[in-house]
């Protein structure tokens, strides 16, 4: 809802990739106010948005999925973004809605981000098929790690420039001035790997609709923790199998996650491994067997693995792995968010900015909080089953 960023894209190296008619901009922005994004701009631009969406959809032989990319803490991405979500559900009910959301970190500069995030969460709970939460701190940590490797000059480790998950050697050099470019590249790679099996051939394909089917056991629990490996490829190193197994181990290490969370000490509901490159089913099975004992799965999904093999690796790598986990470890993130919200809300701080928007009432805030509390409670109930012994339910008995 302001022109700066969109204009930059239109003048940048990718200007020909985007259709300049498929743009909607306004001037003043949403002022980091979810209500402005949702209520004001939502109703203002509803028709235009629908029209442009329909136009894009018409170009498709078969429309399977929408990707919504936004942040939770601001006004436009958060407010108008979630308004759009509802719109898509109404207009295109059969098309999946995948949302990549950047959650606000502990120290972020937007004071009202907890309000915006909680209000947006309610919409995500109800209208998204699948959400991939991301936080900037994790992305920043990943870049720092890469930076360390690139500049440490350890003996014998030379890194192939194209292989960086932050991509393009220039981005790495300039990242001190433009950190977000490098960080965003990581998210871009996430989306690339997610869609790789749909774009390229492989011996075990996985489409986007399969992600939702396998990783979402209950409608509300659709938040997936993602981790990407490898972050870079070392040149001149030829230890194939060990490196391959290392890749699998890394996917389950906290350093490679795009959100701060601790899946290993929480409960897995389901896990997907999307492998690219020259990896065969025996490598996959061997690593699953190896990693399984250290992970806790919910009782009714003890072997809850979804796997896919795509033959084409990403640029600069011989293989790569994207792990998506539906795990109760997202609960702390949500609880923290709720806490930050309550601290502001109890004092009614900044509330008037929202309430002065037509259509916004305090009840909206209460509903959003209770929606989040409900979600947290569902995770709590699952966590409670964690240490209980796995018992089989009695089977149907048949008269012989």
């Amino acid at each position, binding site marked *: 809802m302001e022109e700066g960023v969109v204009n930059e894209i239109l003048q940048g190296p990718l200007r020909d990739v985007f259709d300049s008619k498929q743009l909607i901009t306004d001037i003043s922005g949403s002022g980091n106010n979810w209500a402005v994004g949702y209520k004001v701009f939502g109703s203002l631009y509803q028709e235009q948005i629908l029209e442009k969406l329909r136009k894009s959809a018409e170009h498709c*032989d*078969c429309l*399977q999925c929408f990707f919504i990319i936004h942040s939770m803490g601001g006004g436009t991405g958060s407010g108008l973004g979630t308004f759009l979500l509802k719109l898509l559900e109404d207009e295109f009910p059969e098309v999946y809605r995948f949302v990549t959301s950047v959650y606000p970190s502990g120290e972020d500069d937007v004071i009202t981000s907890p309000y915006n995030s909680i209000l947006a969460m309610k919409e995500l709970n109800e209208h998204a098929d699948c959400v991939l939460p991301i936080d900037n701190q994790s992305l920043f940590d990943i870049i720092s790690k890469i930076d360390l490797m690139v500049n440490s000059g350890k003996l014998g480790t030379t890194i192939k420039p194209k292989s960086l998950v932050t991509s393009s050697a220039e981005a790495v050099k300039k990242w001190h001035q433009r950190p977000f470019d490098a960080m965003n590249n990581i998210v871009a790679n996430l989306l690339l790997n997610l869609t790789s099996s749909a774009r390229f*051939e492989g*011996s*075990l*394909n996985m*489409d986007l*609709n*399969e992600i*939702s*089917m*396998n*990783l*979402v*056991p*209950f*409608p509300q629990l659709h938040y997936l923790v993602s981790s990407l490996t490898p972050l870079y490829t070392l040149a001149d190193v030829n230890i194939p199998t060990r490196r391959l197994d290392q890749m699998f181990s890394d996917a389950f290490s906290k350093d490679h996650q795009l959100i701060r969370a601790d899946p290993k000490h929480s409960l897995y509901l*389901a896990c997907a491994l999307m492998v690219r490159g020259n990896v*065969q*089913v*025996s*490598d996959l*099975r061997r690593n*699953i*067997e190896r990693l*399984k004992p250290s992970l806790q799965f919910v*009782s*009714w*999904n*003890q*072997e*809850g*693995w*979804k*796997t896919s*093999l795509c033959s084409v690796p990403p640029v600069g790598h011989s293989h790569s792995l994207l792990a998506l986990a539906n795990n109760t470890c997202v609960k702390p993130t949500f609880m923290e968010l709720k806490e930050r919200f309550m601290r502001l809300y109890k004092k009614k701080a900044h509330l008037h900015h929202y309430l002065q928007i037509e259509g916004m009432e305090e009840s909206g805030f209460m509903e959003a909080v209770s929606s989040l509390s409900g979600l947290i409670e569902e995770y709590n109930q699952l966590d409670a089953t964690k240490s209980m012994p796995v018992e*089989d*339910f009695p*089977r*149907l*008995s*048949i008269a*012989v």
Partner: protein
Amino acid sequence: MSIVTVQLGQCGNQIGFEVFDALYTDSHCPQGLCSKRENEAYQASCKERFFSEEENGVPVARAVLVDMEPKVTSQTLSKATQSGRWKYGQHSCFCQKQGSGNNWAYGYSVHGPRHEESIMNLIQKEVEKCDSLSGFFIIMSMAGGTGSGLGAFVTQNLQDQYSNSLKMNQIIWPYGTGEVIVQNYNSILTLSHLYRSSDALLVHENDALHKICAKLMNIKQISFSDINQVLAHQLGSVFQPTYSVEGSCHYRRNPLGDLMENLVPHPEFKMLGIRNIPQMSENSLAYSTFTWAGLLKHLRQMLISNSKMEEGIDWQVRPPLPGLPTLGKASLNRGLHFNMSIANLVILRGKDVHSADLGGFKDSALYTSWLEPINAFNAWKTHRAFSKYEKSAALVSNSQFLLKPLDTIVGKAWNMFASKAYIHQYTKFGMEEEDFLDSFTLLEQVVASYCNL
């Protein structure tokens, strides 16, 4: 008589290609160890069953390829054409764009009715090319969405439309440790539906095939292609022509009918497994010799002890002594479980095949009491060697082979169902919890029946 193959989903199509390739390669193999006349009759019989002819002489597989997304079928079609030796019909392929999302309900309730006409038309065209139809061979997996859901739907349709033709479904049992998280749901829904509409279910387990690749074939990095080739080899050893009663040069005309007649005497018992011996890498083959006595001894013990391959056989297992009661459900958990058979078929191919002594398989202790061994056991012998193996033996068995895997899958699916996990994904497409319960009931019945043999 001819067999029309229907390949469904990624699994079905990838396997189908390997099967036709194996059948073709074997029938044109110069080391048949038999007379030229016999070889030519073999080739002709194989061709009649599986290939039709096109103007330029390239054999065309009698197959219909179905998938709900285009990548695999186009790959399969081009792989076949590129080989230059055989190919698929240009118009034998039906595919869509969006896939089934590993959702049985989507494959069965959405894709099925929507594309019923197109798919059945394609099958009809293939059937019309046959002089006489023995039946259908449907290749599908249980774990995914297209093979399982759409496969169940198509099989039902075939039953309605071609009620006089036989249907055998080749089902792939997924790895125990997930390929797909909802694989147990998809499996029980598929099995229960197929039990009602198919004539026989020929089952191959990925875990077993994987072990064969690792232990017998010595493959280090096992790919799905390797697994499918082992499977194709096993199927080929069963489906390639065998002599009829009249002897050499006269091959059996009705492969499916003969198989069913021998192996499926009762509709409650439809689950068949294949064991094949010997199975090894080509390198090892050059250095090995076999005797029929040795091969058959191993094969018999594989049957009795429910071993999936000729390595690691448990020689302690013995048939029960006559007069003692059967152990029933308790036996599921006991270690030395003897595998009771309903019916067995042994197919021998190769050198000195008539000298092979099959007495061990005619022991009445191996079979249930309601069939005499003379009816329960059959053997087919053919001089013509299969796929460069000087001697090879295949066993198709209707026995308790699949009892434990079936019981395990039903158990896991039931646990998940009791927690109601993932159910909303199925009810979204018109299914109800009742449908799940019906499937569970049917399969518990099958488990009980096999258990109480």
